[in-house]
């Protein structure tokens, strides 16, 4: 069994809303000062899903794949520290800032080059653009089935996935090879121990360019994108809260009830 987990490195999302900044002219988010980028939340959970398969079937090989700037090596290292075996980094400026389709094409080409892959795991959505399409597009490009928003992934000849639906769950079986996208309902990702982090430093990370994947510049990154980013901005909220007065919580509560009544809300 060979599993590839696609992990994206993103700006840390766990920052106070006031430190979130956009450069409107560049149409880019300004990464918060002094806060290191991290593995996208659902991607660490996708690594966890792969490790749970490996826990049961120890001969499973797990490859951590990322497309990003040189710093994305840290995201791969995190996956390796969680127990991944090998890493592949697509580090090529021409592949950056593409839309999901261009990114999926590049990742799919890398998965083909890795070869012999039985399952690809992705996050349900990346925590930067919140798009949630790359995994399904990789499946479409590879011609594989896909199951999205998994809360559990079990492999036994085929793959059985419990999917999270808005009003419950469904269990779906897919033939392998397949792509599965993973959601937080799967559970917390394991936390690497110091020794595992040290071991990960010695694990191999291959670095590929678009040319290594036989892709030319017109197929990848912005040039290969079908979506245009016409504007990026921060929404402004203009609500002014009216805080309830009162010497005691009871008084505050009574004042709130009265306000709600006056506004015909109750």
């Amino acid at each position, binding site marked *: 069994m060979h599993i590839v987990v696609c992990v994206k490195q993103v700006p840390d*999302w766990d920052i106070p809303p006031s430190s*979130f900044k*956009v450069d409107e002219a560049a149409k880019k988010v300004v990464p918060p000062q002094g806060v290191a980028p991290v593995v996208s939340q659902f991607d660490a959970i996708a690594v966890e899903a792969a490790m749970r398969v490996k826990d049961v079937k120890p001969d499973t090989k797990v490859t951590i794949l990322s497309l990003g700037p040189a710093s994305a090596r840290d995201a791969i290292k995190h996956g390796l520290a969680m127990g991944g075996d090998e890493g592949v980094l697509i580090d090529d400026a021409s592949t950056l800032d593409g839309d999901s*389709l261009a990114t*999926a094409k590049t990742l799919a080409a890398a998965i083909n080059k890795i070869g012999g892959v039985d399952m690809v795991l992705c996050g*349900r*959505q990346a925590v*930067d*653009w*919140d798009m*949630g*399409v790359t995994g*399904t*597009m990789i*499946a*479409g*490009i590879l011609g594989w*089935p*896909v199951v*999205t928003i998994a809360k559990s992934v079990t492999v036994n000849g085929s793959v059985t996935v419990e999917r999270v639906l*808005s*009003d*419950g*769950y*469904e*269990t*779906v*079986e*897919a*033939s392998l090879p397949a792509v599965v996208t993973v959601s*937080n*309902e799967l559970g917390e990702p394991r936390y690497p121990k110091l020794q595992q982090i040290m071991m990960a430093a010695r694990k191999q990370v291959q670095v590929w360019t678009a040319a290594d994947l036989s892709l030319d510049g017109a197929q990848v990154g912005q040039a290969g*994108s*079908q*979506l*245009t*980013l*016409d*504007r*990026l*901005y*921060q*929404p402004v909220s203009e*609500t002014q*809260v009216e*805080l*309830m007065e009162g010497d005691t*919580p*009871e008084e*505050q*509560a*009574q004042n*709130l*009830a*009265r306000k*709600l*009544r006056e*506004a015909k*809300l*109750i």
Partner: protein
Amino acid sequence: MAEGILVVGEVAEGKLSPTTSELLGAARKLGAGAVSCALFGPDAAGLAQSAAAAGADKVYVVDDTALADYTTDGYAQALAKVIEQASPAAVLLGQTDVGRDLAPAIGARLGVGVAMDAIELSWQNGGLQITRPAYGGNARAVNGFKSTPAVATVRPKSQEALEPDASRQAEVISVAGAIDAAQIRTKVVNKTKAAAEGIRLEDAEVVIAGGRGLGGPENFAGVEELAKLLGGAVGVTRAVADMGWRPVSEQVGLTGKVVSPTLYIAIAVSGASQHMAGCSGSKNIIAINKDPDANIFKSARFGIVGDFKQVLPPLIEAVKKIKAEG
């Protein structure tokens, strides 16, 4: 020439889903030519008239037993057939279980760009342009499309449905060619519906939301009592669902449900942007939080800075009293 808008319709409890009506309303408002609606599965044909009443000029029906359960492969095949026949300039889906799954599948199949979770739509220079939240709701991105058809999902409740007009007629087109079941590589083996009691969260006019600050599942008793008293539903944050205090089906937010009640009372909820993504359309947000700097107060009309343990019981009493007075 690709022209007009195709809306991918969904069926909910045997009826055209409210989100479908919203999409049809939005498609008409775009003024980009004819509006078509695709309907799949055994209930489809019977709903063509509802789609017409909601704004469709044409209804494409794909009725095939292979479409009884939603599968990515089956629905992508069906939608590709409709797109081929209708040749629309843009395809709109809901940001729903189906739309989330189907939009990227059709995008990959046709090799076209896809944008998810649009909250605003416009027609610019003969093409679709959408605005969507990104970075957990902290940013807004405006996207255009180089490829045709443009494919976008639209956030439920972000658009307005038209007043249904029963006299409207649509041309109903039954799409020929069966679905190739051999190409459906996934199989739904089991479905579990979350036990739903009382009013549906998405439809509720009043939502009482509880967050991690409640400290444990036992403290939802007050939240439930207030919800019952006001004829509302209980909503929760992801933190609460992740800890298993409440079912995931009650989660409100970016990766949960979108609600837009008249009254949204958030108790011990910090108001993270990803949570607000699911409730910022509420007409009146009320916040009870012990932290005066909590983000939730930035979106609230009324607020109480205080401990829910001390505020909630007298609030329930005061509401009861008002209710009793009539």
